[in-house]
């Protein structure tokens, strides 16, 4: 991620003010693009647009619409960016957009802390096989508890089963 002047591309799998790229580059421009083709394909209803828009209004993002990769590239060029930062997504559409942007500009995908911090093999043939391994990792807490503003739930370290330290 050795960018000097990146822009941040915010997509629908990480609409949080704690977005890793927004935290890492708080002064760099950030963009959200309404994916016009996806809106048509999924026939999304107004209620979902409203929900997403309310999420966006709490983020320091410029909001645009159109073809996502083209809009991200144009935005990056407007800001003389040397790269694009975003967060991971399992969506195949994300992979296509990322590849298209990468034909013009380098893209770095930052991870969001996973539920299961385990890099080994997880058998996904069934949930029970996955959970047999994942469970102990899922009970290991390492993220600070979200600040609930009223301080009702201080981030006390819990006792976790299977915790090695």
């Amino acid at each position: 991620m050795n960018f000097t002047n990146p822009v941040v591309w915010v997509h629908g799998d990480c609409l949080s003010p704690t977005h890793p790229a927004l935290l890492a580059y708080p002064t760099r421009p950030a963009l959200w693009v309404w994916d016009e083709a996806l809106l048509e394909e999924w026939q999304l209803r107004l209620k979902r647009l409203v929900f997403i828009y309310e999420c966006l209004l709490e983020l320091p993002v410029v909001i645009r619409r159109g073809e996502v990769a083209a809009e991200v590239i144009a935005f990056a060029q407007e800001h003389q960016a040397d790269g694009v930062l975003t967060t991971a997504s399992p969506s195949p559409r994300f992979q296509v957009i990322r590849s298209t942007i990468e034909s013009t500009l380098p893209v770095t995908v930052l991870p969001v802390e996973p539920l299961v911090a385990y890099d080994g093999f997880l058998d996904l043939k069934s949930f029970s096989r996955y959970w047999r391994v994942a469970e102990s990792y899922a009970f290991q807490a390492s993220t600070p508890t979200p600040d609930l503003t009223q301080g009702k739930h201080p981030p006390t370290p819990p006792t976790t089963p299977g915790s090695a330290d």
Partner: protein
Amino acid sequence: MSRDLRRDFTDRADMITYLQEQFPAVLPGPVPETPGGRKAALGALRRFEITRYGSSRNYLRGAVSRLSPYIRYGVLSLAEVRHWALAQVDDPRMVEKFIQELGWRDYWQRVYQQLGDAIWEDLAPYKTGFSPKHYAPNLPEDIPRGTTGLVCIDSFSAELHRTGYLHNHARMWLAAYVVHWRTTRWQAGALWFLEHLLDGDPASNNLSWQWVASTYSQKPYFFNRENLERYTEGVYCRKCPRYGHCPFEGSYERLSQKLFPHAEDPKKKHRKPR
């Protein structure tokens, strides 16, 4: 240069009017009761009675979290919700069921990462004794219109359309009704849900429909009236004109024989809700 969309509004109504103007092709309809954003997400977290979750979650009036739209859009990450949950209790076993549900979301996302758009295809044969050809490709119109005459099903359909939210158990009953009683392909139901659910995510949505249909599980999920009446505390059945003679009447064994007469082992136990 593209035109930036507005960020300043006098109030929610102003924003909604603006969105309707900007996206005239988006189908109109009710606006969500669930507000978007991190502040609202943290409010939902504060209201969540997590210690009641494990024992009451299958009841429609149970202490469910209502966090799913925020988790779906990453307003809250699974890891931070998990950490918050563990911080609420001295003994992690008290929040075991909730963390397992976070695990289900993580699991579906990992499967999606692996399979991509293949999650729209049957991942395995139906275990119902029927071939895919047996199932209709389109959703029967009376289901989204809420005119089946079954008060429970019509109420769930109306709630989905109005609020963009359904309790997990209601999702499963509705999905089972679509696939097994109305012999409709799960894909049609999955698309319908994705259109309306605020938390609509292809992975959790499609793979759960496949789980109900039995194309991503060892047996179909179905239910009977007794089960539905119990977990809804009878609110639908009491006002249903078909009470006592609805399609959901009977033991699981009887319903299994009726719904899946050609299945290899119709006496197989039914699935319980997750």
